[in-house]
């Protein structure tokens, strides 16, 4: 019988995706003496090794890279450090900054001075959105299909209906078409496409893929394998309208219906979550539990991997300051989303440093103005839920600021509700 291995480190990073890799490298660079990186998969990179399309790295590496190439660069940087990388290691318990992790053979208890959460997010599945109908094989999340096609070399089906117009769903529509499958149609609950316009053009229009907005999947038919997918138009309450059914022969249904930050570990030790599913964080990326910091998609879903790396690096720099006892906490100001703001990060401001506010709108607007309390406002020709808004507020404006900050977005409706 092997006992529990005990070890002590300065910083433990949970998750080896674009965020965790950035955090581990940065924590070491900022002066943490021993840094450990825990990754439950057999390889580093999180989701990016399966994202073979381009568009990564333009901000962080000033060069357009594929997902695997982006990770390749970060892993090369990591290899220059003495960060202890533990793959096939799953953190199963978090008590303050003490982690219990399961490796291939043993349990390891890691007593860290600070922990950085980098678990990212996972896809919503059929169970999350309660699609009625039979339960045959052939219903996949878009990310699972992406892994099957791009990493493992299998095509998940020949006639495919895609529900959800997020970027992964659209990218998979193009990928499946290029690999010889037929994408029967793409169905979107809202009256507008959820992902980037570039993807709408280059993944859907380029391949003449039929799109049904304000529709949803109302039935799945099939005994062993999906045989038919039924879609219906929806009403104002997002409920299917009887009589509007359209039936498509298909062997596969892909779901691209949103991502949920993965925070089971965080809540285990009392980290408070926001309605988005991400932890409350302050402007130093510290959660509600002292010594636990968070960056990347575990906090909120970012548009770009580059920003995931960037925010995780900021979490790492502050985690090291925390260990050294000089985290610059001055006072606490609450930040709340107001009109047409679905969420805003950070949730509190504690330092007098420059702050970057990240937010998403609820509904698309044109000629829009976003106001960060009384601090700053910024004008936009368009704001869309798919495009994250970032507004930087300089340090001199934050100094001595004590009132709660409400973020509002006003403008003209671009799409009728």
């Amino acid at each position, binding site marked *: 019988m092997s006992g529990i291995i005990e070890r002590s480190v300065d910083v433990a990073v949970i998750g080896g995706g674009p965020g965790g890799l950035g955090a581990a490298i940065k924590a070491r660079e900022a002066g943490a003496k021993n840094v450990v990186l825990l990754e439950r998969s057999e390889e580093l990179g999180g989701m990016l*090794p399966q994202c073979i399309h381009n568009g990564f790295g333009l901000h962080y590496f000033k060069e357009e890279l*594929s997902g695997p190439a982006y990770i390749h660069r970060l892993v090369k940087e990591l290899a220059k450090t003495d960060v202890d990388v533990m793959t096939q290691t799953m953190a199963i318990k978090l008590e303050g900054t003490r982690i219990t992790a399961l490796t291939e053979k043993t349990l390891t208890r890691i007593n860290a001075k600070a922990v950085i959460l980098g678990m990212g997010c996972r896809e919503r599945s059929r169970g999350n959105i309660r699609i009625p109908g039979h339960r045959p094989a052939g219903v996949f999340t878009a990310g699972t299909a992406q892994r099957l096609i791009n990493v493992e070399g299998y095509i998940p089906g020949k006639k495919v209906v895609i529900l959800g117009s997020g970027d992964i769903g659209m990218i998979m529509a193009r990928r499946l078409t290029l690999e010889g499958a037929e994408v029967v149609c793409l169905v979107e609950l809202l009256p507008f496409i959820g992902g980037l316009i570039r993807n709408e053009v280059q993944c859907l229009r380029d391949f003449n893929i039929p799109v049904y907005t304000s529709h949803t999947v109302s039935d799945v038919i099939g005994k062993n394998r999906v045989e038919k997918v039924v879609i219906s138009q929806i009403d104002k309450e997002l409920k299917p309208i009887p009589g509007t059914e359209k039936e498509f022969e298909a062997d596969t249904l892909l779901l691209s219906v949103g991502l949920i930050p993965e925070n089971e570990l965080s809540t285990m030790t009392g980290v408070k979550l926001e309605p988005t599913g991400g932890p409350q964080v302050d402007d130093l990326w510290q959660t509600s539990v002292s010594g636990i910091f968070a960056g990347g998609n575990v906090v909120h879903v970012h548009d770009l991997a580059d920003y995931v790396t960037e925010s995780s690096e900021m979490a790492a720099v502050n985690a090291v300051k925390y260990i050294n006892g000089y985290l610059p906490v001055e006072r606490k100001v609450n930040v709340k989303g107001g009109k047409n703001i679905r969420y805003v990060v950070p949730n509190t401001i504690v330092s007098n440093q420059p702050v970057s506010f990240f937010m998403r709108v609820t509904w698309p607007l044109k000629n829009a103005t976003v106001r960060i309390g009384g601090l700053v406002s910024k004008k936009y020709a368009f704001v869309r839920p798919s495009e994250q808004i970032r507004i930087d507020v300089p340090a001199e404006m934050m100094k001595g600021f004590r009132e709660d900050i409400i973020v509002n977005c006003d403008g003209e409706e671009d799409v009728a509700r």
Partner: protein
Amino acid sequence: MNRKAEVICLQCPLACRVEVEVDKDNKVVSASNYKCKRGKTYAAQEIINPVRVLTTTVRVLTRDQIHPLLPVTTREAIPKGLLQDAMKQLAGIEVKTPVKYGDVICPNILNTGVDVVATSEVLN
């Protein structure tokens, strides 16, 4: 015969829906519904010779059973109409290890003058 198209401009977040028309010699006869000249130029390119970067995978002869594929990309955009043919050509390729990031996997694909290169590494 003149050709007409509605092109969504991708040069900035405004995403103008440019109406563009070219004659039989691919000369722009008319363009409307754009807010800056980048929109006109982009729409002309999209109707005359639309190009796309192709990213896909090729087989790699590796001992690694979980990762039988190598991600690749065209180094530059190729004509949109050639995407399916390029896929067919790449489907016949098997790469030997070791393959390094940036290695040319298929030179001058379909005589476009554009190489297809690896965007990852498989060492053995």
